[in-house]
Every structure is written in structure tokens, then in C-alpha cells.
């Protein structure tokens, strides 16, 4: 790693001010960023650690019934306190040691095309709250590793509308254990949302056709005959575009079958 300064702010206000330093980079749990720094794929001059900001940690229920998760909350805490679909997702990210450090804000800010959390945020229609504004998940994800976040903006909270039932199913890439394809299905009184991660070259996306079908009838059979085009799907040695497109249907069915 190239060397850098480390700032350890104790409040969001101090973190925002530290992010004003030249070439500053926010550090969530570091489970992606630190390996990236070791490979010298990034060279910030200062890392602003968000791990000591207690106002950014924890899970609670907001006035509107939404589940509010602090941006610096680790996966292990969400696995314990999230609703069924979200807790299930968080409990299968990485391994126990990674879940003790990795954070929801870090995952969403990075927007890795194979990360799990983007599927939950988009699949639930969550709101990404930053130090300066609120961003709807539908506007937040803007392609592989790309988000609506501005320079220096920090995710302080993520608000999830709580679905009636939900489930995340992923087909893991056997070496990295990241999602080769992951699908989050959430049923709300106003309809069903389906979000797919791992598959597309544009990152997480909603599968509108399946949403319409599942909103009519929430059963595995509703997805029969539906398919996503292989065009634009990631193709690599772990799976072709056609294979990933096929897995989207399979994972969606499993998620519907196991929704709770």
C-alpha cells in the first residue's frame, strides 16, 4: 500500500469536514477498500475512517415503520436485527470475520456489480440518506461501481420499507463466494419488486417483467416462461452471459419459494 494519513472522526460533521481534504477517501469496514489499496488500485492521501461514529451505527424502526440502518452498521448487526429477507442476505455476505467489519454504507457506496446489498436496497425501494440529502434507490445505482454520490458525500443511513415477505437468493461464484447472480424479491401491499445483482454489466437492475407477473400472482409458476435477455450480461470464465441470464430466473423462483 502507498502510505496515507488516517482520520478517525467521532461525528458525521467531523467526517464531512475531513472529507474536504485533498484526495480524501471514506473508509467503511475496509473489507473491499483495504485489499484494493494493497493492490495499489487506489492511492488516497487520507482515509477518513467511519468506524468510530456512533451516530452512524445501529438498526432502528423509524416513524413511518421503515427499518433505519446506520451507514456504518456492520453486516453482523443487520443479520441480527434486519427483517427476514435482509437479515438472510446480511448473514451470507463473505464470512463471519468479514461480517464483523464490513458495513452497509461501504457496500452501497462501492456498488460492486456482484455485491449483495445493492439488490436489497433496490429490491425494497430503500432510501439512501447522506450527510446532505436523501436519494431513492431507483436513482442511486448508476452502473458498475457508479452511484449518485458526489465527491465527499457520506452514506449516513439507509431506510428500508419493510416488505410483507422477502428473500434473497444467490448463486455463489465458487472461488470468491461473491454472487454470480443474486436476486432479491420483496412483496409489498402495492406490488412486488425484483432486483438482480451479479448478472449485468450495468450493475444491479430491476426485472420489470417478473415484478408485473409476481404482483399478479406471487408464486414460482408466475415466473415460468419469463426470461431476461443475455445481452448486456457479464460473461467470464465463471459463467457465460446466457448462463447468468438463465440463473436470474432460477434465483427469482427460489426467492419466491423461500420468501418469509
Amino acid at each position: 500500500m502507498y502510505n496515507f494519513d488516517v482520520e478517525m472522526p467521532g461525528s458525521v460533521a467531523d467526517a464531512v469536514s475531513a472529507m474536504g481534504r485533498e484526495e480524501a477517501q471514506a473508509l467503511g469496514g475496509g473489507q473491499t477498500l483495504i485489499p484494493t489499496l494493497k493492490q495499489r488500485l487506489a492511492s488516497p492521501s487520507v482515509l477518513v475512517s467511519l468506524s468510530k461514529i456512533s451516530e452512524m451505527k445501529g438498526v432502528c424502526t423509524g416513524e413511518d415503520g421503515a427499518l433505519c440502518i446506520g451507514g456504518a452498521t456492520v453486516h453482523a448487526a443487520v443479520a441480527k436485527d434486519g427483517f427476514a429477507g435482509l437479515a438472510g442476505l446480511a448473514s451470507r455476505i463473505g464470512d463471519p470475520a468479514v461480517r464483523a467489519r464490513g458495513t452497509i454504507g461501504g457496500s452501497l457506496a462501492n456498488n460492486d456489480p456482484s455485491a449483495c446489498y445493492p439488490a436489497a436496497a433496490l429490491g425494497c425501494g430503500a432510501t439512501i440518506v447522506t450527510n446532505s440529502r436523501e436519494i431513492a434507490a431507483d436513482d442511486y445505482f448508476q452502473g458498475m461501481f457508479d452511484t449518485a454520490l458526489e465527491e465527499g458525500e457520506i452514506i449516513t443511513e439507509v431506510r428500508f420499507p419493510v416488505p410483507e415477505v422477502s428473500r434473497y437468493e444467490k448463486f455463489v461464484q465458487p472461488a470468491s463466494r461473491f454472487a454470480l447472480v443474486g436476486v432479491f424479491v420483496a412483496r409489498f401491499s402495492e406490488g412486488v419488486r425484483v432486483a438482480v445483482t451479479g448478472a449485468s454489466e450495468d450493475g444491479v437492475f430491476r426485472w420489470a417483467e417478473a415484478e408485473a407477473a409476481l404482483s399478479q400472482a406471487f408464486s414460482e409458476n408466475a415466473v415460468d416462461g419469463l426470461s431476461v435477455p443475455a445481452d448486456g450480461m457479464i460473461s467470464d470464465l465463471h459463467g457465460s452471459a446466457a448462463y447468468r441470464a438463465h440463473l436470474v430466473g432460477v434465483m427469482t423462483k427460489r426467492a419466491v419459494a423461500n420468501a418469509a
Partner: protein
Amino acid sequence: MRIDMVVNGKEAGGEVEGRTVLSSFLRDQLALTGCHVGCDTSQCGACVVHVDGQAVKSCTMLAAEAAGSEITTIEGMANADGSLNVIQQAFQDHHGLQCGFCTPGMVMSAAALLKENPKPSEAEVRDYLEGNICRCTGYHNIVKAIMAASGQDVVPVAAE
């Protein structure tokens, strides 16, 4: 920068660079070389230590972020009289190690598991060890050792 923490029950500290990871600090400055660095990319789990009671991969945490924390490494696991603790003894009894490189991380992960789940099923043990890689044993005897350490019956013969 100067950092201070409690390591294995004793005050410890030193000067570190921003980029110093916890595993480097433990090994190079505190001479706690039982914390093994296998992959240095947070895959293998040989470097697992406890930070404020949580098992973490010390190669993927900045030392600066551990300032003020309580750290436990494999060197802090033995009983007060120096004898092996129940998990370590179970690894010896059930041949849970061959070359031993992964063992510190395995023991630290096992200790974290048994603290939150004192009587895990075999499937739960295997699931919890997802981030700990062993290239010798095929895991069978490691799982067996952890089951035994939790006080559950295991088949005594290593292989049959």
C-alpha cells in the same frame, strides 16, 4: 501516529504509519508472530484475532482503527498456567492440524463461534469456518476438534 490498545490483557502500543495493518503491528512491533499472514488478501483467515470480542481478519483492518480496543491473539488463548485451553487441546487430541499454519486463525474463529453458539451443529461449524482455509487436513478433523471442544460426542478415531 501513536496507537495504544490492550493486547492479551496487557497495555501495548507503538508508532505506526497510516497504512500499517493490525497483523503487521502485532507481528512486527509486538512480536506476536502467532498471528499468521497467509494470503494478506482477507481470504485465508490465518490472521484472525479478536477485536473487542469479535473475530476479524487482522490483515484487513488498519492498526489505527484498533486503537483503544481490546485485542486477543492466539498467544492469549492458553490457560493461566500455560497449559492448552480446551479448544487448543481438542485440536491436538483430534489431529486438527498438520502443518499448523492456519491453526491460530482456526482456533480464534472456533473460540468466537463457541462464544456465540456453545453447542453448534457440524453444519454450523463448517459454515462458520467459511473464511478459514486449511490446505492440509481437509477440515474433517478441525470440525471434529471444535465439536469436541464444545463438549459434544465425536468419533474418537481420526479416520476410518
